[in-house]
């Protein structure tokens, strides 16, 4: 009897903690959504999600251009001008590199592998300044094609993804590749026809993470995009907040919300891939 009661209480506590903490976690996001429909007078007058006097003025103003050059829609388009190439180039270059490291032996491989792994711990903070100097000499700053943001991904520069794919490849048996080799497939055909289909879940995870991270990236565009007409959403959101503090929070929050809608959609469509990717790629715990 008491044991049963104790168990019941423990279960109750577990759910209570999960629900309360979860509520605190999610509430700001829900509030943000509701605030975009509130009038500016109402936003900070209470904490409820209920909208007394629904208005679309926040959204209407959000689409107004800022300084004549840019509005949230062009900012979003600008964002995807580099996010999409980044994602595509990253998965291609990371897959090729991971394949090279995981399936071949060559002179200096273990040394190069160690070098690659050590770059996982190389903080970006020491690289920003010289990279900026280098891009500036190459005339890449404020490039129309976002070169400093995109080009490095052609070279598997985000080691994390290479590492994640290698971890995955290690768990894939080599028999199929050996069979393909006997059947006369060359290494490139093996990569395209055997490795890529088997690695697909891992590649999808890489693509998703790169998508999110590139969307969220603030430092890159802050350093390398100077012309207002080319600003991506990250910079645009920051500017609209700086320009508006204290006045039009429904507009600022509407702009912010619009900027994360694609990420939210992708997240809900592909939740499980995220979870699998993060637990498989990190470490084999």
């Amino acid at each position, binding site marked *: 009897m008491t044991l049963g009661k104790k168990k019941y209480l423990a279960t109750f506590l*577990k*759910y209570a*903690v*999960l629900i309360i903490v*979860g509520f605190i*976690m999610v509430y700001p*996001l829900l509030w*943000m959504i509701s605030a975009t429909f509130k009038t500016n007078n109402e*936003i*900070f007058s209470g*904490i409820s999600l209920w909208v007394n006097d629904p208005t679309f003025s926040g959204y209407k103003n959000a689409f107004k251009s800022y300084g004549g050059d840019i509005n949230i829609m062009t900012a979003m388009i600008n964002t995807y001008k580099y996010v999409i190439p980044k994602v595509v180039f990253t998965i291609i*270059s990371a897959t*090729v*590199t991971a394949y090279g*490291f995981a399936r*071949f*032996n*060559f002179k200096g*491989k273990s040394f*190069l592998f160690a070098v690659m792994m050590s*770059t996982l*711990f*190389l*903080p970006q*903070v*020491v*690289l920003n*300044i*010289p*990279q900026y*100097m*280098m891009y*500036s000499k190459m005339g890449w700053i404020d490039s129309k094609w976002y070169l400093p943001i995109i080009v*490095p991904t*052609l*070279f*598997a*520069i985000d080691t994390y993804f290479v590492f994640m794919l290698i971890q995955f490849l290690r768990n894939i048996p080599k028999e199929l590749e050996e069979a393909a080799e006997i059947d006369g497939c060359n290494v490139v055909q093996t990569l395209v026809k055997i490795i890529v289909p088997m690695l697909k879940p891992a590649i999808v995870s890489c693509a998703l993470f790169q998508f999110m*991270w590139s969307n*969220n990236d*603030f430092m890159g565009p802050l*350093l390398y995009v100077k012309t207002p007409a080319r600003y991506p*959403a990250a*910079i645009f*959101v*920051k500017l609209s*907040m700086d320009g508006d503090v204290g006045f039009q*929070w429904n507009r*600022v929050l509407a702009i912010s919300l619009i*900027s*994360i809608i694609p*990420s*939210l959609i992708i*997240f809900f469509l592909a939740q499980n891939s*995220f*979870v699998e990717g*993060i*637990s498989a790629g*990190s470490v084999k*715990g």
Partner: protein
Amino acid sequence: MSASAVAGKDIKQPIKKRTFKKVCKDNAGFLFILPWLIGFIWFKLYPFGSSLIYSFSDQHLFNGVTKWGLMNYQDIFESTKIMRAFTVTFKYAFLTVPLKLVAALFIAYILNFKIKGVNLFRTAYYIPSILGGSVAIAVLWKALFKDDGLLNTLLGIFGINGIPWLSDPKYALFIICLLRVWQFGSAMVIFLAALKGVPQDLYEAASIDGAGKWRQFFSITVPMITPVIFYNLVTQLCQAFQEFNGPYIITNGGPRNSTTLISLLIYNSAFRAHEMGAASAMAWVMFIVIMIFTVISFLSQKYWVYYSDEDGR
């Protein structure tokens, strides 16, 4: 003796053939990693080296170098402003990382019981870490914690006077920390995967021996997942030392420099004042600090991280 020699001769032929094929394959492997190697030299090694060189000069973005020496490093240790930024960075990292990991482990531990709707909870906890790095969330944070923001409105309902969360140096850093702590979801997912891997029979054995839940947690769960705790610790620490977005967007280093992390100072001196040399020196000191902590973590592994014999899985 002679038999093995004969056998050796016999296999020699096919081996030679295979070696030729192997050579091709070896080069193929190198060709596959070549793009990465080029990228590594171009975007990492070369900048890494040149940043060290800049740090010993007064390199200016436009004016170039006029003198060389240790002056940048000297300035760092003489400037109270810079030393303060280091202190603030340490405070930030050592507040954020433990809180985040404890929250992540705690929630993961609860979720690991047979919880109904585990996926729903996991989603709720995970969303902040997916979106949290974005500028949009930093904006939201400001709306929550500004002087007449949501939190103070809530406190007002209970008749508590608003607290100037972001404009009082006492609280501002903590609010910036909280933004990262709130994003404990990804660490939690990693913990959850690890917890699932702890063999159930260990718990059964322990409960037969009369160990309570707490005892089981500290004597079985924690030791079994130390590799993952270690991984999370290193990655989070490395990230926390470099935090930029939160303080830059929400407080811009203020009030009274209480949230000026070193990365902000580096940014300001490099990209506002264009003093690339001085900023590089700061970046290098920061780099060395991060390295020291990474190395300490790695060296300390043998005292507290438990790797099972089977290939560390």
